[in-house]
């Protein structure tokens, strides 16, 4: 019961902050609400007994990505930019269509109920997750490290100020 209350608290927090991310005009405020959302989602992970993922969420998102966003906004200095404008009708369509799809699937879920699954155990635990990750998913794990290396090199090359003059 208390778990459900905590879950509901973090869920409402995450949704409210997510709406504020999209609605805010100032990008810096959006980033702060994004940090709020990320931490609330980490709380949701904790209530779902995915402690490892909650910790990773706080460390990688809260500590890494949000700080990266803040630095980019400081560098780009979004305050000097003109406010964005879009005609009302396309804007309305672009808002209504995703919301309608979301509401429809949510309605179907609640009305029909989710099909009953097989065994439902307690917590997942680090051990089983680690065994599966380094057993069945070792190759994707190594691929992810290659992806991160490629991203490291690619981001430096794209964001570099001057192009290196190639003798060829």
């Amino acid at each position: 019961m208390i778990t459900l209350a905590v879950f509901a608290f973090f869920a409402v927090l995450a949704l409210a902050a997510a709406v504020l991310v999209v609605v805010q005009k100032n990008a810096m405020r959006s980033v702060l609400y994004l940090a709020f959302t990320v931490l609330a989602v980490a709380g949701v992970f904790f209530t779902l007994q995915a402690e490892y993922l909650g910790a990773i969420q706080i460390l990688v998102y809260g500590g890494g990505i949000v700080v990266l966003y803040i630095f980019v906004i400081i560098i780009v200095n979004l305050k000097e930019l003109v406010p964005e404008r879009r005609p009302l009708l396309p804007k309305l369509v672009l808002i209504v269509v995703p919301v309608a799809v979301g509401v429809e699937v949510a309605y179907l879920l609640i009305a029909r109920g989710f099909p009953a699954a097989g065994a439902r155990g307690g917590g997942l635990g680090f051990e089983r997750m680690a065994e599966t990750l380094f057993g069945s998913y070792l190759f994707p794990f190594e691929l992810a490290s290659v992806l991160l290396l490629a991203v490291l090199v690619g981001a430096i090359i794209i964001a570099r100020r001057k192009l290196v003059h190639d003798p060829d």
Partner: protein
Amino acid sequence: MIPIEAVLVLGLLLFAIGLVGVLVRKNLVVMLMSLELLLNGANVILVGLGRRLASPRGAIFALFVIIMAVSEAAVGFALVLAYFRQKKSSDVDALDDLKG
């Protein structure tokens, strides 16, 4: 015990809000932020289903989604910076000169 429907609806709503942000906002940085919201919604659903099925695979997939989100953010920022250096703007409307 948290009902699975609540978890799925939470993930779905986060996804929908992120999708609205990507579609409606014109600021490149805010669009990238909305993309993070979208991936977070997917992660919530993955973790909830993994717990429901008592399988560690949901959390593992969510871990890979986080790795991918980090990569996307890093490359996206590099592109935003390179673009801003050229155009002094991060409005996507100015991007239409990329059209061939």
